[in-house]
């Protein structure tokens, strides 16, 4: 497959402009590798190489070779979008008829030979090749047919499933690229937000100083009030002390006076008075008793 490899490298190493023209003219591209009527084997090789080239263009790894020159024409900012539109990855494979013959060939021959032209060409060509034994149908040919049938069956049966799995994998890869981009954008925006908030916080430090000054004032006020309260309590204490002293004195004087009066009265009661009082009490009691 040396030819295909050569074609691969050619596409990759091509300068930007020719690559673009190649893509732009994909629909009308001549099969440049088939210069004359050759065996279908070379046709097949040509087909595979083009498929391979297209695959290389479509599914690219993220790390690739730096181009050898990046002149102003090839810079992204100055690209001529009208004449050189950006390549878009095709979703469907190129249209083919009979499974392997490109649609472009039919369109190419349509003006000259109409609808049946390419079919007639193919039929006539194969008849010529087989009858003249230019294409020899020997053992390997029949082997090839059998293998072809098996391959067609396998592709028809497993193709869609495998295709979907692979497409999903590609989609995951591309999604991861997009997520990286979105994530980066979000991160940058969040960083900007945080910076703005930090600026706001820094400016808000000023307000703290008012709070600090107020703290100092509150402490001074508290100390002043405490002094007032202290003075008041000291004065009150002294006055209360004097008051208590006076109270105690008065109380003692009263008690003493009472005791003295009682003592004196008790002492002045003579025995004769006591007997007379007792007698009087008995007479009163006797007078009261019979009445009950």
């Amino acid at each position: 497959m040396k030819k295909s490899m050569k074609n691969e490298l050619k596409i990759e190493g091509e300068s930007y402009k020719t690559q673009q023209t190649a893509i732009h003219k994909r629909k009308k591209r001549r099969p440049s590798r088939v210069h004359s009527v050759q065996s279908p084997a070379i046709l097949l090789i040509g087909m595979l190489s083009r498929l391979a080239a297209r695959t290389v263009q479509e599914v690219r790894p993220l790390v690739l070779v730096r181009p050898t020159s990046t002149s102003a024409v090839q810079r992204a900012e100055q690209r001529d979008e009208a004449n050189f539109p950006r390549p878009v990855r095709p979703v469907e494979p190129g249209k083919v008829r009979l499974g392997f013959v490109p649609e472009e060939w039919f369109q190419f021959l349509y003006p000259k030979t109409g609808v049946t032209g390419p079919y007639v060409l193919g039929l006539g060509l194969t008849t010529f090749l087989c009858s003249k034994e230019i294409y020899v149908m020997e053992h390997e040919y029949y082997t090839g047919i059998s293998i072809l049938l098996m391959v067609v069956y396998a592709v028809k049966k497993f193709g869609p499933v495998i295709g979907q799995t692979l497409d999903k994998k590609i989609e995951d890869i591309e999604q991861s690229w997009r997520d990286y981009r979105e994530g980066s954008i979000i991160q940058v925006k969040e960083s900007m937000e945080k910076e703005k908030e930090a600026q706001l916080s820094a400016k808000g430090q000023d307000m703290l100083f008012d709070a600090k000054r107020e703290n100092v004032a509150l402490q001074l006020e508290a100390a002043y009030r405490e002094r007032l309260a202290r003075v008041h309590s000291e004065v009150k204490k002294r006055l209360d002390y004097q008051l208590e002293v006076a109270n105690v004195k008065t109380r003692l004087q009263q008690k003493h006076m009472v005791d003295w009066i009682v003592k004196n009265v008790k002492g002045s009661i003579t025995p004769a008075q006591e007997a007379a009082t007792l007698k009087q009490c008995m007479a009163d009691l006797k007078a009261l008793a019979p009445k009950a």
Partner: protein
Amino acid sequence: MAARRVAASSVDWLAIAARVPEAQKPLFNAFKGKSDGYLRSVLSLPAEMPKINFAAYKARIAIPGMVEEFEKQYGAMQIPYPADTYSKQIDEIQKEVAVETETFIKESEGRIAKLQAELAEWEKMIPYEQMTMEEMVEAFPDKTVNIANPTLWPHTPEDQPGYVAKEGAEE
């Protein structure tokens, strides 16, 4: 100054709290706690000198002239307001902090400008599906292979010869 301040908080705590970053919330709470403590101690004491009922004392106390003497001196007493030694320091520190804030804001603006440049680049970038290899190399020069200066396997910066570890990450 002999002027007395009001016995209530004139600071907008909500506005300050809104600007405090998450990491310094405990510090802020401690500061507010202290402030509230001072306010509480101020409110718990009476604002003016309490009155003493000298008439009652005069009626009871026998010592002549004592209560009148006390009354006279009590009324004439001038209690000095405590001196304010800290306000000047606060002003100085506020000036220093203002200067620091200025420098910080300038640096922050620089960072924002860089971030905006980065954002503009991201926004300008075309979708990956439409990029060619050359455009990819322009968009991510550090992630693509450079033929002039190839990197050795594994292709991480730490494993290349001549790598010098940077002290502290640059944002």
